[in-house]
């Protein structure tokens, strides 16, 4: 493999390993003397624990020990929250419940046995006597007087009451020319389905007092820190390893009960403990996403000028506060409500509400999809109400292009953008005018064809740590990198980012290759092992390249600088006459005076002839803390056709034109857009977590939770515009979530557009066949009734 450049579509170097079954996931870890743990979980959504009888389980074949929540109450402590809001209610979150269970799946006991099968068999024998309490699953209903209360600390189940505003919405709508359109929108709860479920192996070394935790996580360094804070185990005696991680989508950015419990039990037992989450378990024990009940108003004038948006949200956060739960529906949501529009007035209030459901945290997009859906749906709705084209309305309100910072109503500064340029490119690819005439013909032929658009912007690359801290972050959100050049000139990179499918091993090696002119295969990218490099933050919120990549770029800069100085010294030249190109240092105009990068590395370690004051070795660390978030944006256009007889929605075309700044590896960005769009379409058309009123999850398996499948998709037409970001040295923006954020409103706008002539104005996601069929039936009934009334009068 040769050297790679910034912008090359280098194939993913991790794939041969991963797709031939040679990856190493947590479940592939087998240690001498390893035991297996199963969790006993509550089948009830809300109950007091009267007693737990573990005797039958303890006597079952192969069982080593059984612990209840009460047994471990002191050692386990409580799970922490990493993001605070003003007056946030933080009820205790015990890793194992000992008094009350608050959702189906809340863990109450663990069984440890020689095999996973024995542990599962014995877990069924743990006899818990529950006093069943009334449960509540709907976030709005949970805030009403008389609703079942989950925590004594949170009156009316309200964990927070947060708001943000800019401009003066109430004043703006006093203008008699302004019309206000109101809509209730439910953004349904989703269940992340990473290909690899969670899993933990805890290995306590009683001789040294060291604990190693292998865990399927996006944040190994935070797990180390938080484990230490929760249990008091000294941080230097904890090593956390995230080996190959098979997806996360945000559901692995929390510290979980199972990580704490496995560590404590391994210490108690003096043996390694493994727990692997089953898919059924993942449905109830791993955090969910979204779940907003929103009342939204959009205000504007007949000429298409939008004057403001007002949003009230009941954000369902489940039974306990997950690690980043307070962040997702507040800042990551509220800051995005102006979109790519001038939007002079924004007002937003969000209640975080406890319910008897699985805790809710980040899920691909995390807050931005919810905001973007509201905004993009309501902009199209506004256009429909005033009888104007949704694209004309968008164009009229769009922000002007800018290259270095544009302050917006929500108080943040977008880094760079050319929103109209991007829209124009998408429209050109799509041929919007052509479509509208095709649609008219289709309608005449009795076909239901619709087009939907979303012109989104989102926030990625968390974060400027000082800003994040002022908003409630309890940790810095910079990123680290370590570049170790070996004496042979081969390179090991450690990144604090923690990939779980994104392809960092490829892209970061590509960046090294591009910067140092060394072959890709000479670069080993390590990640996810807290003993291998400096403290890092992790991978979430589309931050790895713009923050972690920038940290790597800065380390490479230091390496280059030192190598340059050393090379000049060895070449006996003034450094300013030494060039570095294609992996080789050369003295200008003296062709035979040159040294390869590898020779310089060898000299740095040989240390026989270093310039005065230079330390031996060639290794650098950088911590990069950006000055702003990055703000990718773009235009997605979707065409759907609806089968009038069945209500089934089929995707006909999908055009995605994103702007994620400079692009290091276009193929990988395309892949991220594809996957993201698929997830956004999943939310729009098929996915939903469904609870019964008493808190049983009906959509608790892949047989009952409809993930989108490949046969639903047309070939996606993916293109880009490029507006470099000024806030990191690579000029890149996050690309991991934009597809998801953009897709749901584009698809739903298309569904509504296909039905608009029947009088349909809104439909909540997912647009299931039955829901669409009913909407068509009801709309036709309404039209018939109206015609009948007209005839009578």
């Amino acid at each position: 493999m040769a050297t790679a450049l910034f912008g090359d579509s280098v194939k993913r170097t991790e794939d041969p390993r991963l797709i031939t079954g040679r990856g190493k996931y947590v479940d592939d870890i087998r240690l001498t003397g390893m035991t297996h743990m199963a969790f006993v979980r509550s089948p009830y959504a809300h109950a007091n624990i009267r007693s737990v009888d573990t005797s039958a389980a303890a006597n079952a074949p192969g069982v080593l020990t059984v612990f209840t929540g009460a047994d471990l109450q002191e050692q386990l402590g409580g799970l922490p929250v990493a993001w605070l809001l003003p007056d946030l209610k933080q009820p205790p979150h015990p890793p194992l419940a000992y008094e009350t269970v608050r959702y189906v799946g809340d863990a109450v006991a663990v069984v440890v046995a020689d095999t996973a099968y024995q542990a599962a068999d014995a877990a069924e024998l743990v006899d818990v006597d529950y006093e069943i309490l009334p449960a509540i699953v709907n976030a709005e209903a949970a805030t009403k007087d008389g609703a079942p209360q989950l925590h004594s600390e949170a009156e009316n189940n309200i964990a927070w009451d947060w708001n943000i505003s800019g401009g003066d919405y109430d004043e703006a709508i006093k203008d008699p020319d302004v019309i206000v359109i109101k809509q209730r929108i439910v953004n349904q709860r989703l269940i992340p389905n990473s290909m690899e479920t969670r899993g933990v192996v805890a290995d306590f070394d009683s001789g040294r007092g060291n604990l190693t935790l292998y865990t399927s996580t996006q944040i190994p360094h935070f797990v180390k820190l938080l484990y230490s804070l929760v249990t008091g185990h000294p941080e230097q005696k904890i090593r956390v390893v995230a080996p190959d991680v098979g997806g996360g989508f945000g559901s692995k950015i929390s510290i979980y009960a199972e990580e704490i419990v496995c560590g404590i039990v391994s210490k108690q037992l003096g043996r390694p403990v493994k727990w692997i989450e089953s898919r059924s378990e993942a449905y109830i024990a791993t955090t969910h996403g979204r779940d907003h009940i929103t009342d939204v108003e959009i205000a504007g004038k007949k000429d298409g000028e939008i004057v403001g948006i007002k949003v009230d949200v009941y954000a369902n956060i489940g039974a306990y506060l997950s690690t980043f739960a307070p962040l997702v529906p507040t800042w990551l949501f509220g800051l995005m409500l102006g979109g790519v529009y001038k939007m002079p007035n924004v007002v937003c209030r969000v209640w975080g509400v406890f319910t008897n459901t699985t805790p809710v945290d980040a899920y691909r997009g995390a807050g931005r999809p919810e905001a973007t859906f509201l905004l993009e749906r309501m902009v199209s709705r506004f256009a429909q109400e005033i009888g104007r084209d949704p694209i004309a309305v968008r164009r009229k309100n769009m922000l002007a292009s800018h290259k270095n910072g544009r302050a917006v109503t929500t108080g943040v500064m977008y880094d760079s953008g050319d929103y109209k340029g991007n829209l124009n490119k998408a429209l050109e690819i799509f041929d919007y005018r052509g479509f509208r005439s095709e649609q008219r013909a289709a309608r005449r032929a009795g076909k239901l064809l619709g087009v939907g658009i979303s012109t989104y912007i989102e926030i990625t690359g968390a974060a400027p740590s000082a800003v994040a801290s002022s908003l409630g972050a309890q940790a810095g959100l910079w990123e680290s990198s370590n570049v170790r050049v070996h004496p042979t000139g081969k390179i090991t990179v450690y990144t604090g980012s923690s990939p779980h499918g994104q392809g960092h091993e490829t892209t970061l090696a590509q960046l090294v290759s591009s910067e140092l002119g060394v072959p890709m295969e000479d670069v080993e990218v390590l990640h996810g092992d807290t003993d291998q490099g400096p403290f890092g933050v992790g991978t979430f919120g589309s931050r790895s390249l713009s923050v972690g990549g920038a940290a790597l770029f800065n380390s490479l800069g230091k390496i280059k600088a030192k190598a340059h100085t050393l090379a000049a010294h060895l070449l006996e030249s003034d450094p300013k006459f030494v060039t570095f190109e294609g992996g080789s240092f050369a003295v200008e105009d003296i062709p035979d005076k040159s040294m390869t990068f590898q020779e310089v590395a060898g000299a740095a370690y040989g240390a026989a002839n270093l310039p005065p004051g230079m330390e031996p070795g060639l290794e650098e660390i950088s911590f990069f803390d950006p000055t702003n978030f990055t703000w990718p944006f773009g235009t997605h256009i979707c065409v759907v056709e609806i089968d009038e007889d069945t209500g089934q929605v089929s995707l006909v075309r999908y055009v995605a034109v994103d702007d994620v700044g400079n692009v290091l590896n276009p193929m990988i960005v395309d892949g991220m857009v594809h996957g993201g769009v698929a997830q956004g379409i999943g939310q729009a058309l098929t996915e939903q977590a469904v609870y019964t009123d008493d808190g049983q999850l009906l959509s608790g398996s892949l047989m009952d939770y409809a993930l989108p499948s490949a046969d639903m998709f047309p070939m996606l037409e993916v293109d880009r515009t490029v507006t470099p970001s000024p806030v990191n040295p690579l000029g890149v923006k996050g690309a991991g979530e934009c597809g998801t954020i953009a897709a749901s409103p584009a698809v739903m706008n298309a569904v509504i557009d296909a039905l608009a002539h029947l009088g349909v104005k809104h439909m909540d996601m997912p647009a299931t066949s039955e829901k669409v069929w009913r909407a068509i039936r009801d709309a036709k009934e309404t039209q018939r009734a109206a015609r009948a009334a007209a005839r009578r009068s």
Partner: protein
Amino acid sequence: MVTSNFDYFAPTTLDEATSLLSRYRGEAKVLAGGHSLIPMMKLRLAEPTVLVDIGKIDGLSYVREDGDGVAIGSMTTYRELETSSLVKSRYPLLADAASKVADLQVRNRGTIGGSLAHSDPAGDLPAVVLAIGGSVVARTRRSSREISIDRFQVDLLTTALHDNEIITEIKLPALPSGTGTAYSKFHNPASHYAITGVAAVITVSGGTCTEARIAVTGAGDKATRARRTERILKGKELTPAVIRRAASRAAAEVQDTLNDDIFASAEYRTHLTQVHAQRAIEEAAAAAG
């Protein structure tokens, strides 16, 4: 989830397999392709203590002419049905239905015998075989019998099969000339099982429908003949009006056992059954010429 404990046998002859079923009668389940049974065992919805895997027995996988009709070995996979030229030419709806089962990996494992014996209320093949007609050959250690397909599916996940019997073959009759077939399915977006599936086998002679077998799956507790629909079709010219009227009765036989879940209410299922009955009948009628 992991299964509870069970003993596993992998006999290489039918005699051995049927002997095991007799010895462990009531405790043993037959394992064919495993794509229904294993998931149920992992969820502990099924906890047989003995599994008799018949996958190692030679000679149960074939599609061959059998007198005027066709005989299909019970371990013939969906994929084999989907690609068999004999099936495609003689029973196009069977090849088509098999091609609509789940994904390729499942179709490489799942078998026609397993599908019939499991009798999933939303399985595709029970309805298709019911519409074609024919019989299921079942063997015990000592004897063998033929069960008419019309008497085979008894109830939810229940067939006429005794618990010491193994399906060895499915016998399909020759379809008269002038017969057209079709299978129209609306799949569950999560499981890809049928929310409703309608199989139609229609014979037209001199412009009149002389024979019609219509079977519905997914809507009720088991694959069921839509006899009212058949009666409306038989003896008539298949005009759009006749087909519409017949299709409107397609859910009548399953009315009392209609499924109702988060993907389709009973009302919507009834409607979908009518829509897909119309599509299947139209397509079969067109193919009948």
